[in-house]
């Protein structure tokens, strides 16, 4: 499938930011809030470049999974952009309509760009990844238990 060539996809800084933003986008907002509260008791000083905005994106599929793209339907997304005093800019996108979560995602992104990436990863992103992985693994294990194990009856020769 087409991978965007707009920026080098193998740039480790971009790969790290992409992974971070993807984790934040999918995080349950209550968990994101709780993990942030453990990390810091307040929000860093920032300028809002784009106030949290709720919108929709059109999700596409492909005919027959591999053919022509088609519009499947929309999903809600909230986005937000901030700039810290240092000048670091953060962009947050989260699934759903939680404006606070979008602001937090943007702030975490900006702080990580500013040099706090390792601390944020340990405190917020690693737990979010682990929890997502655990949810996924549990569902996969339950699905595996519903896999049919066929056995064939031996038929007589006459």
């Amino acid at each position, binding site marked *: 499938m087409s991978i965007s060539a707009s920026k080098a996809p193998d740039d480790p800084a971009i790969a790290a930011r992409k992974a971070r933003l993807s984790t934040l986008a999918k995080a349950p907002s209550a968990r994101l809030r709780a993990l942030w509260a453990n990390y810091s008791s307040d929000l860093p000083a920032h300028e809002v470049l784009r106030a949290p905005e709720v919108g929709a994106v059109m999700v596409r599929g492909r005919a027959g999974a591999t053919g*022509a793209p088609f519009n499947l339907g929309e999903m809600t997304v909230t986005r937000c952009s901030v700039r810290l005093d240092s000048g670091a800019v953060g962009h947050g996108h989260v699934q759903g309509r939680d404006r606070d979560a979008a602001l937090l995602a943007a702030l975490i992104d900006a702080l990580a760009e500013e040099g706090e990436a390792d601390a944020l990863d340990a405190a917020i992103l690693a737990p979010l990844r682990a929890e997502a992985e655990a949810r996924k693994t549990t569902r996969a294990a339950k699905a595996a238990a519903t*896999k049919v194990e066929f056995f064939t009856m031996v038929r007589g020769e006459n």
Partner: protein
Amino acid sequence: MYVAVKGGERAIDNAHAWLAEERRGDKDVAELSLAQIREQLSLAVNRVMAEGSLYDPDLAALAIKQARGDLIEAVFLIRAYRTTLPRFGATRPVETGAMDCDRRISATFKDLPGGQVLGPTFDYTHRLLDFALAAEGLDAPDVAEGEAAQAPLPHVTEFLAREDLIQSEPDGPETPRDLTREPLDFPADRPLRLQALTRGDEGFVLSMAYSTQRGYGRNHPFVGELRIGTVPVEMEIPELGFSIEIGEVVLTECETVNQFTGSKTEPPQFTRGYGLVFGQTERKAISMALVDRALRWEELGEDNVGAPAQDEEFVLYHSDNVQATGFLEHIKLPHYVDFQSELELIRRLRAEAMQTGLKDAAE
């Protein structure tokens, strides 16, 4: 003809207040929370998301509560809300081959790689009312866990494609036509038909699909594969210059394997129908695949036998339950002036007929 009639305001306000009271029902019964609807009526939530064409389980739960469980009314509420949202863009096409499957079955290959995974299905239940559910505070049974597969489950059609036994899916424009942004125009192409079908009324699409099975545009479908699970949704973010996963959605996908086509230049091959729907919506996804296949008659060089499911104008113009409800229900609104003119006309015609009749009798 319509004329504005005033004077209903007090009656309307009172009707709405009573509606709110009726919605709440007996106050001795605990009020439903949105979380309860989202978690315990999840298939209703899924249907409202699919037909409302907006993936947001919390909003769908709210719509169901507000609509007192009338799902078409709930779909209407979601569609109306959707129009208030700015659109940030479109995602990359989702990769259903990389789906984390809760369920994946094939009716064509018993021993396919990855196996037949039943998932949380109603199939094989006896459809007997379970009175144990009437008791509250019942503990859910322990759910068994098995050894999870590590690799994504391959699509069944891939096996047929490897031997060239099934037609390959032609590519199309990167930006498909969007019926929410432009008026429906015919001929529709397949992407536009798929968009209409995935948001179409489940009952309508089911009946159209059933009609093909009963002979009105028969296309001999096998469910090559049915899968339900979660896929990430990836979108290019202009301010970043690269794409990120902006969320994940549960989808149901059905690929049918249908009767062959072949010609002087092409050896016989199976053909395909395709269904992809938001949420766990199995009946709808299978129906969609059958109707998609029926609508492809022209592209596949088949005869138009005049079956309703082959007529894209008929299918696409009548699949949308919000449009249908709007037009159907508008006839209950005041048509006093229209009717007044009909009434006068029929009185005059009757008077004339009576006069003539009396005259005839007298002569």
